[in-house]
């Protein structure tokens, strides 16, 4: 893994990215010029006080939100060149998402939730099933495949979200405060699991967080303050 980072295969490059919101005529500068490169295999946390622009930044690099100026490159390709349903397909094929809570479609079982992205990709049923079962085993929820999300604990739900994010082998997994709704023990278990998947499968993770536990496990910690990078620390 260390090697991969040393090789520096850039997955995301942002160049002077700015995002300004208009809120009742008042301009809010959520991101004020961020230059950043995230490389394959990273396990990186973006930290900073509330309102510092973490969520906005994650939304920008996944194309969930537009930018006001600057450039975002994903695998060398400018995000601005991807339009309409191509952008949906792009996220489906290249980015995995884990949100703070309520990640799952409540009327679908665990298996169906994890399967969903592969279904969108048009992968045949047999292979979908095989891969769902493998990934559910990885996150330790094989026996829960037929359950509905409401019948799972918060931690288990987040694990399903991790499984869904990883199942189609995306280039990057974005996790916006994935532990914020969990107690510290459950959160810590979830993080250990993600760390292990990162090391075992080389999956790239980018977190936004207030959580000390994530910061302590992350290999790189980027601190945002008022929409600009205040610190970028690579740990040994």
């Amino acid at each position, binding site marked *: 893994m260390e090697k991969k980072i040393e090789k520096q295969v850039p997955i995301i490059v942002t160049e002077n990215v700015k995002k300004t919101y208009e809120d009742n005529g008042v301009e809010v500068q959520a991101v004020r010029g961020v230059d950043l490169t995230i490389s394959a295999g990273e396990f990186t946390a973006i930290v900073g006080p509330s309102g510092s622009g973490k969520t906005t930044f994650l*939304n920008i690099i996944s194309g969930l939100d537009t930018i006001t100026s600057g450039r975002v490159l994903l695998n060398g390709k400018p995000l601005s060149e991807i339009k*309409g*349903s191509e952008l949906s*397909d792009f996220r*489906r094929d290249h980015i995995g998402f884990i949100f703070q809570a309520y990640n799952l*479609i409540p*009327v679908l079982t665990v298996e169906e939730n994890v399967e969903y*992205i592969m279904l969108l990709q048009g992968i045949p049923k047999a292979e979908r099933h095989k891969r769902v079962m493998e990934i559910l085993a990885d996150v330790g929820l094989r026996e829960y495949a037929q359950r509905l999300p409401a019948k799972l604990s918060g931690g288990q739900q987040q694990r399903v979200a991790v499984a869904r994010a990883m199942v189609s082998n995306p280039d990057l997994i974005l996790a916006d405060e994935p532990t914020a709704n969990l107690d510290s023990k459950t959160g810590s278990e979830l993080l250990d699991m993600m760390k292990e998947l990162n090391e075992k499968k080389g999956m790239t993770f980018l977190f936004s967080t207030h959580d000390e536990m994530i910061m302590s496990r992350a290999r790189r910690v980027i601190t945002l303050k008022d929409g600009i990078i205040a610190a970028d620390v690579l740990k040994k």
Partner: protein
Amino acid sequence: MWFYIKLAWRNIFRNKRRTIITSIAIGIGLASLIFTAALMEGMINNMIQSATSSFLGQAQVHGGDFRETQDVEKTVNNLDQVTAELKQDPLVTNYTLRTLSMGMIASPANMNAALLVGVEPGSERFLSKIADTLQKGSFFDGANPRDMVIGSKLAEDLEVSPGDRVVATVSQAKTGDLAQEMFRISGIYQFGIKEMDSGLAFIRLKKAQQMLGIGDRVHQIAIKFKDIKTADMPGISFWKKYSRFDNEAVPWTILLPQMKAVLGMVDISLLIMAVILGCVVVFGIINSLFMSLYERMFEFAIMRAVGTRPAGLRKLIVLEAGALAVISIILGSALGMILTLIFAHSGIDYRGIEFAGTTFHELIHPVMNKWHYVVFPVGVLFFTMLVAIYPAWVAGRLRIATALRKSL
């Protein structure tokens, strides 16, 4: 696609109460449409029945252009063969022979023009309601060849009652000579239709033929079918068959064009009702869909984030509307069927009420028609999904980042 159908179906059962209330509302709309259509069909049957059964018959055969000219010389051609065929015809239950000629009827008090109708009392009973609407006297009960049955209005004008004598004058065929005969009023009927009560005088066929000098010939054969709908089928071979020998066979739809127009109006009012109910249904659905849409913005944002295209979300919403429609259709069709069956059995009493120029004489029985259970439900399904395009479009335009932020 299958997956979205599954998802849509499960989604509409998330809020069971709302789904049930909405589908009951739509279902009631559909049921009332089905029931109204059944009622209208029953009403139409009733109207046709009463229009054709009083005197007209469901079809008539005349000779050549008798209908236009009313020329007493123009009798039905090849009468023996035609009646032999009618006797055998599987579509026909009854027919009767008539002569028709304009004449003058004079009483000691007054003189009136009337259509003198020669009838065979035996078979006439199956084709007209004259015998059933008698006020006084009888309908050719004895064997007196000089019996005459007239309407109440005509009796009033002539100031006659049963037993009184009148003199009828007609002009004979061919020669145009006047023929005069004395008759005795044997019965007075009252239809409740002014033209019928003031303008007709019935005598025995034999006597009429003799007066007119037309031998055994007649002017009109009035026909009753086994199924009243037969008259409304212009394509069947029946009409051609009895229009041979320079005769003319026509259904009541042609004899009574104004009645046919009334039926067209009934269709239009059904359409208007369908449109009004359709609007109610449509707004019910839009309301329900938007409520469930706004509740699930976060969920839709997640679906969009992980790679669902806007079109996928739109498809889901339209399918949810479709699923809602399917439930409503099941409810509505069942309710409509129950209502129709109940009232088809018991009948609805509109007797004595006049509608579009005819008076209902019998109970109205709503008619079960399988097409009502095809056309209206398919319409509901189609329009529901059509209407769902609007909320679907709104869902497709969802701003993901905003929706994700708002709901947390």
